[in-house]
């Protein structure tokens, strides 16, 4: 798979990362390098290997459905830049 500068810009846009033209080109080089590595690995025959969704072959532990958290709003909001009426305030967003 080959990547273009416009692909890089699109990914940066989705990730809310601001990059200029030079950075986009540099990133393209780096990402293409990663794709080359992947291509090399794809030469290995994995047809008999079951794909894993996680790097470790262990399963998810579950917790019982119990309320274990208490209200610590004051503590958490002490580090928030702006709060009002119990709400965290952020720059206005309306979709």
């Amino acid at each position, binding site marked *: 798979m080959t990547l273009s500068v416009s692909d890089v810009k699109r990914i940066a846009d*989705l990730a*809310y990362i601001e990059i200029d033209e030079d950075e986009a080109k540099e990133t393209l080089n780096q990402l293409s390098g990663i794709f080359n590595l992947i291509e090399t690995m794809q030469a290995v025959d994995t047809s008999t290997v079951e794909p894993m*969704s*996680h*790097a*470790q072959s*262990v*399963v*998810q*532990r*579950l*917790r*019982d*459905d*119990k*309320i*274990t*958290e208490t*209200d*610590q*709003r004051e503590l*958490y*909001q002490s580090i928030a830049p*702006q709060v*009002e*009426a*119990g*709400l*965290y*305030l*952020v*720059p*206005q*967003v*309306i*979709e």
Partner: protein
Amino acid sequence: MQWEIVIGLEVHAQLSTQSKIFSGSSTAYGAAPNTQASVIDLALPGVLPVLNKGAVERAIKLGLSVGAKINSPSIFARKNYFYPDLPKGYQISQYELPVVQGGNIQIQVDGIEKNVRLTRAHLEEDAGKSLHEDFHGMSGIDLNRAGTPLLEIVSEPDMRSSAEAVAYAKTLHALVRWIGICDGNMQEGSFRCDANVSVRPRGTETLGTRCEIKNLNSFRFLEKAIDYEARRQIEILEDGGSIRQETRLYDANKDETRTMRTKEDANDYRYFPDPDLLPLEIPQSWIDQIKQTLPELPQARRDRYVSAFALSAYDASVLTSSREMADYFDATLKQLPAQAKLCANWIMGEISGQLNKEGIEMTACPITPAQLAALLARIHDGTISGKAAKTVFESMWNGELDKNVDAIIEAKGLKQISDDSAIEKLVDQVLAANAQQVADYRNGKEKAFNSLVGQIMKATQGKANPAQVNAMLKKKLDG
């Protein structure tokens, strides 16, 4: 041209767990802002999600109820997008290998049974809430709802009218409540529908371009939004235009849908397996154990009511519209076996009517099944008429005389006159006093008969057994 409407629904059912899907915060509705938002819900650095067993259990219950496949392993994925009420920058959801795969739901529209296939049902977390008013140009964020467990239930595009879509949504709504996985409270957003709507010329197979309508929080809005949207699409196509794939919002005040976002600016969610969560293994032993706890399902109970009690399909479906109602019916019938139709009529009529009128739930019904059965027994054995029974019912509802049926009948003097000789005497008296009407009747004026019955009933304040009065009168007149 004849058009066919094609509809698929996505339903978000909020699961009735005590705590959130990945944290130990409470999910209780209506708390003060951010008092139920812990470090995990706030997405502070370094925290890790731990999956709630109760949420998985509820998803499995749904899967078993609709005959679906339970995937094991099942995988959690990150759905990436930016919005301040989603502090992690991604929603934990499922993409490949959801807990529930496939399944079927039977719906009924105008007495016709239809099967709707399910695509999947997956677990995910809800986002927080954004408030845009009154914060001097800022938005307020409440993260109490963030991390609330949701089961997104996705259907195949199997519905062909808004009526079918509503029937499906109602059946699913009844089912999730029946099996106790969701409280179904639509005002509080516990059961939300999105509809995918497209149209195509009748007789063709290819699906038309679809639009997704969001924000449908009542069955009525679901119906109206689909009807509006189908009309809109047909109009565009008939004018030679084409449909643009987009997400639309239903505005209940204007009864119309409008563009929310188009496909071009649709989010690319970049799903990938969440490295914070390991594959979820669901052993068969756990599935079997959950199967044991499932109640008899609405479909099975509906079929049983028809086959075992000879109730009509309509009666059976009304009685099984909620588990509470079906249980109430079963309990009443247990006290009064072989009177299924009488029990059904009173539960669907008087009991439901009164509950609706006072806005109370079946579980809070002031008359117990045993008390209702005691009342119906008195109709059945002829002690009181159906009309008098309604008076007794009212007294019981209001808690008079400890809701004792016989005491109320006695106190109100509602006992039916069923003694043959007493009725004969009454009939003779009325006949003697109404010679003209007797003559009218004998001259072929059928109406006169009813008038005579009315007089007898009036003379007894409605207490004479009407069947006996009719029979006796007929005997006397026709000789």
